[in-house]
């Protein structure tokens, strides 16, 4: 019984959530447009959570992803102010993410500071830089090239419903590409399997010839670039940038990975499970908003659901240990 909860509890819970909304929102919830909305709404979170999975596979954390997202948004907007063309500004912001991620990696793997402490410190550093660069202001309006903001609103058309053209949002495509890429890296390459080995037993992995330090270092580059990309997606969606706009992504991304871990057989972080966790969070926000649940009550409910899912899974695991 406990085993069943552990193995399929998360899945059953997810189906129950979807079914609940489908019943309560019969007209709107299970429509293509709504699911495109949800997938677009969670696209930034999906990118951050997918890359967060890469470090969590090793048993590490990156708390700096939110402020890195803010920083990259501010960087791109500031470069627009200075008249940089879009591709160059975007590349520069991604480079900032890469550098920040590698810096995290160096601090964690070479200097040897606990990831929790190290990335808490870089969180503050990145956030400070974002304020410094933007002067604490929101950069928006004419300063942001129209094409940059339009990217998040557009996408290739995939059909029409009642003379309205339905598009597959560009942000969804970006997120899908990132998730696919991370899936390939983690599941299909020797690099990814070595990261899992580090998470399984770092000392055993080292003695078995896994170059633990360089791997840990580079893995943090994924979260750096991933969060910078998410920051760009965010900036495009709101056609503006301010030094705190990505901050909320960090906790939600970690929550999504944990939710995903309750779905996998061995309790490991896996990127497709993370994606499921991201979708659950997005569905909850979308469905509860449509059901006109107060936004603060919504937060309490979402937090409780995360607690229940992870708690049940932990209980299930302990049940195994009792045997």
């Amino acid at each position, binding site marked *: 019984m406990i085993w069943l909860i552990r193995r399929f509890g998360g899945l059953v819970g997810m189906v129950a959530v979807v079914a*609940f909304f489908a*019943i*309560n*929102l019969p*007209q*709107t919830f299970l*429509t293509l*447009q*709504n699911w495109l*909305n949800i997938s*677009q*709404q969670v696209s*930034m979170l999906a990118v951050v959570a997918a890359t967060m999975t890469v470090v969590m596979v090793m048993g590490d954390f990156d708390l700096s992803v939110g402020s890195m997202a803010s920083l990259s948004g501010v960087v791109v907007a500031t470069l627009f102010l200075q008249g940089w063309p879009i591709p160059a500004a975007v590349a520069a912001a991604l480079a900032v993410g890469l550098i920040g991620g590698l810096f995290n990696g160096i601090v964690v793997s070479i200097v040897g500071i606990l990831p929790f402490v190290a990335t808490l410190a870089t969180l503050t550093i990145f956030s400070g830089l974002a304020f410094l660069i933007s*002067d*604490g*202001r*929101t950069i*928006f*309006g004419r300063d942001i090239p129209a094409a940059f*903001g339009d990217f*998040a*609103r557009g996408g290739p058309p995939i059909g029409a419903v009642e003379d*309205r053209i339905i598009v597959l949002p560009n942000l969804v495509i970006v997120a899908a590409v990132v998730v696919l890429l991370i899936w390939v890296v983690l599941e299909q390459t020797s690099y990814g399997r070595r990261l899992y080995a580090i998470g399984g037993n770092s000392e055993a992995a080292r003695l078995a010839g896994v170059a633990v330090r360089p791997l840990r270092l580079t893995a943090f580059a994924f979260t750096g670039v991933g969060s910078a990309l998410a920051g760009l997606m*965010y900036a495009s*969606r*709101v*056609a*503006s940038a*301010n030094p*705190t*706009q990505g901050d*909320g992504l960090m906790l939600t991304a970690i929550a999504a990975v944990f939710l995903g871990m309750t779905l996998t057989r061995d309790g490991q972080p896996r990127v497709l499970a993370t994606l499921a966790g991201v979708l659950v969070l997005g569905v909850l*926000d*979308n469905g*509860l*908003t*449509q*059901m*006109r*649940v*107060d*936004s*603060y*009550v*919504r937060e309490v*409910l979402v937090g409780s659901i995360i607690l229940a899912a992870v708690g049940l899974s932990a209980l299930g695991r302990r049940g195994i240990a009792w045997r």
Partner: protein
Amino acid sequence: MTLRTALAGVVSAIGLGAPALAQDVAVITPYLAQPGTQFYVDGFTARAEELGWDVNVIDTAGDVAAVISRIEDVVTQGVDAIVINVDPAQVGAGLQTAADAGIPVVGMDAGSDPLVAANVTSNGYAMAAETAVYVANRIDGEGGVVMFTFDPFPPVQVRGVIADAVFANFPDIEVIDRITPDVSDGGIADSRAQMEAILSANPEPGSIAAVWAAWDQPALGALQAIEAAGRDGEGIVITGIDANPEARAAIASGGNFEASIAQDFDGIGRTAADTVARLLGGEELVQRVIYVPTELVTSANAE
């Protein structure tokens, strides 16, 4: 949020809520925690209750992208109207969704945008004109005036332009200085420092007739500088805009700080509700910016 609305939320979440027959309006803001926004929203919900509407207030706690997401969600839900309190330029994607679905969006002090049916706000031009004219009249159209402005922020920049025009129209008024204070700490401290420098540069009593500030903080800074320099007996007239609590207290005490302008936040909220009602009634709004009257605050009404 009251306990009642919270409970209503839970009840509807577990699927017991009766389907709403009344008009369904969503108010979406990232800034509910800020005092001004709370006044707007309270005014709006009070009026909406009188009209018998169902209002769903959604706070995204500073997350602007989430405002877009929630606009998309309430569009899917099929609300009758949406009210926002955020720069429309930042939530264009959401506004487009609402426009595609034919759902009207009204802004509460949100800024103008083709996708916003109407923006309800205070008239910044009028507020600046009123205080500038107050200054001109108090000094009988004659003397040196110090201006505190802030052009980087568009709503404040507008006020400066109007004051420029008013003072230019009085041949005997000379603008001694037009200062843009550093606002990183709120603007009081730097305004005070700048004012102290001007006072030193113009030592003769009567050489400065008035200080016009585009908002209250520089006015308060200037007041501190004048009092500290012991020149509060010269009759220098100070005005601000916004009538925040400190400004009101200064005005009420009857010193140099004589006037400011109070925006009617509650009125903006109520008028936004009335505007929604007009739109729902099928009215085409010709005027896309609706101004709510402001009130000049002097020692007579500062309390």
